[in-house]
């Protein structure tokens, strides 16, 4: 079974649309499918978005399934411990670890990472965010000893 692709009919002006979405805290718009790979670039500020299902264990469980179903584990490994893509389970974030920052990374993509905004609705992305947040270690231990 192939995932449903959400295709916008015309080219959206991303910054404009996202600014609108952010201001209203509404669902961000779909990303055109051909932007799906390398939307990347400079995502708009996203600090004001908050995770509507934060800490919800069933949302985290759904997110874990999505993490497999949409091939996130193909790059970040099972358990998101890192493979060709970085670890998402170490409590550290290259592009910021706030709700909105994680959401944006998935929605718009980052260097080397496709934008999933074109193929996943926002509530699914929030479930992924919730799953990743559930993996974070309680404390950051920077030392490895042999």
């Amino acid at each position, binding site marked *: *079974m*192939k*995932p449903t692709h959400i295709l916008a009919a015309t080219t959206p002006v991303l910054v404009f649309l996202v600014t609108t979405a952010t201001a209203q805290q509404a669902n961000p718009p779909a990303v055109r499918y*051909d932007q*799906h*790979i*390398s939307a*990347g670039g400079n995502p708009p500020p996203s600090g004001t978005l908050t995770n509507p299902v934060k800490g919800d264990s069933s949302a985290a469980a759904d997110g874990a399934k999505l993490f*497999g*179903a*949409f*091939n*996130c*584990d*193909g*790059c970040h*490994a*099972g358990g998101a*411990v*890192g*493979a*060709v*893509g*970085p*670890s998402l389970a*170490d409590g*550290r*974030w*290259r592009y910021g670890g706030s709700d909105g920052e994680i959401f944006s990374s998935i929605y718009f993509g980052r*260097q*080397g*990472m*496709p934008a999933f905004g074109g*193929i996943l609705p926002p509530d699914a992305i929030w479930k992924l965010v919730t799953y990743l947040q559930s993996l974070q270690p309680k404390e950051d231990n*920077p030392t*490895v000893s*042999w």
Partner: protein
Amino acid sequence: MIRHRLTRRLIVATVMVLLAPRTAGGQAATAASKDDGQWTMPAKDYASTRFSGLSQINAVNARRLRALWSFSTGVLGGHEGQPLVVNNTMYVVTPYPNVLYAFDLTQEGYPLKWKYRPNVNPAVIGIACCDLVNRGAFYADGKIVYNLLDGYTVAVDATTGKEIWKTKIADVYKGESTPMAPLIVKDKVIVGTAGGEYGVRGWIKGLDLKSGQVLWTAYSIGPDDEVLVNQATFKSFYDKGPDLAGLKSWPKDGWKNGGAPVWGWLSYDPTLDLIYYGTGNPAPWNVEQRPGDNKWATSVMARDPDDGSLRWAYQFTNGDNWDFDSTQEMILADLMVKGRLRKVLVHFDKNGFAYTIDRATGEVLVAEPFVAVNWAKRVDLKTGRPEMDPTKLTGASKGNITDICPTLEGGKNQQPAGYSPRTGLFYVPTNNMCMDFQSAQVNYVVGTPYIGAGAPYKPGPGGNLGAFIAWDAANGKRVWEIKEKYPVWSGALATAGSVVFYGTLDGWLKAADARTGTLLWKFKVGSGVIGNPITFTGPDGKQYVAVYAGFGGDWFLLSGDVRSDDPADVRPAATFMPDIARHTSQGGIVWIFGL
């Protein structure tokens, strides 16, 4: 007066020596490769032997080898591949972003003549399955030709470093990427695509060496006219047709995202006028989404280099259940097999069998395991098919299948073996691991991994994760073995001095006696070795050995915490090799050694 004459003579002689290799270098690659002082193509010669006739460094004096020079490439990605040495210049291609360095070997400290910095699309970072590697360049007709990871082939003037042509061959937005080294045959540049983990449809292309124009494209899978196969010219020992391209060995449309990429090495037999290469795994890994043999994935292909037409093919792993790519090199040799001198190709497959195959017909003459194998009992030479163990078959409905040997890293992977016609032995870097394999249904999402399986590794019999072995391909027997703690992911170099070289994942370059496997020398090169040692003659007439250090490749993904460049990426150690990060981190260095 006499003294003056002598000096003049010496000057004349010196000038002639300096001029000689420049003249030779202007000729075709076939002529240059006869010169053992140079290394003009990835595997030294068209037969992919990685054998050099140089013998100044020998089994007696190898213990006196020492490091003479090193250079940081400034790049952290895994340094697979090997340098070229042509006309007293050493050429080094880095992993992404694929910088090309030209070192002047006639000057003290080997300063750069130039460096070429292509503009490579960073989107490919998410499309290359297994680190951002490059497997090397090819020298021909005054050009250095290589692939950029984002789907371009470039030709750069070997003297000036100026770009001569740049051709788009692959589309990163379809999951294609191009880490492999080209092969140049006559006036054709042959290149292929990676992407077996992204649901591409694999191909090779023939480009015009002069202009870079794409002249033909030959898909690994699909309809006959796109696989470039027809009844008139296709004569294969086992597969007689009528389904030559194997379209019926796929579910309807399954072949369209069916993988069979080409990311390994190519060989060429000038007498038969055939190129040989292996294709990668069928996609996805979950075999239940693609019932059938899945031709011509996991196969060796023999094609005419002029028009790309398929002359014969043979599939090693029918309906692959385990990600057993067959992209490993095909080494061409003439061997006495069962009392007859045969023109063969020798191939060490991911699936753990070493194949000795008649390279004119595709008949399998010998197929024996070179590592621990349990997914198949044997290969039936009459049918060419492996006798699979039904308890090791995988699939989403079968759950977790345990203790399959070897792993999907293969008995051998990209790390190329070597062959010495002096000893008659093949020198093979190997992995010694087994795996559990759990498949799952997977969706094709363009530009994301199309895999559908998880497969944790464990050490194979004996506990050592790798070994460097000598193999008798006429009889299918291991002659000697050097056990290594970690998978041996570097290539082999064989020399007429009866010394073989290889590197280790924990960062040693080692020299061993080609006949006995006795370790002669080793040196810690600063990072794990996954590149391939080469040897050449310097402007001073002395023999040198060069190699890359630079941990990575599959082990960048799978080793745990081996990176130090990203504060936000801290990983648990890999269960099967928990202490590799104690011995190496990333970082590319080019090394030169001599006596």
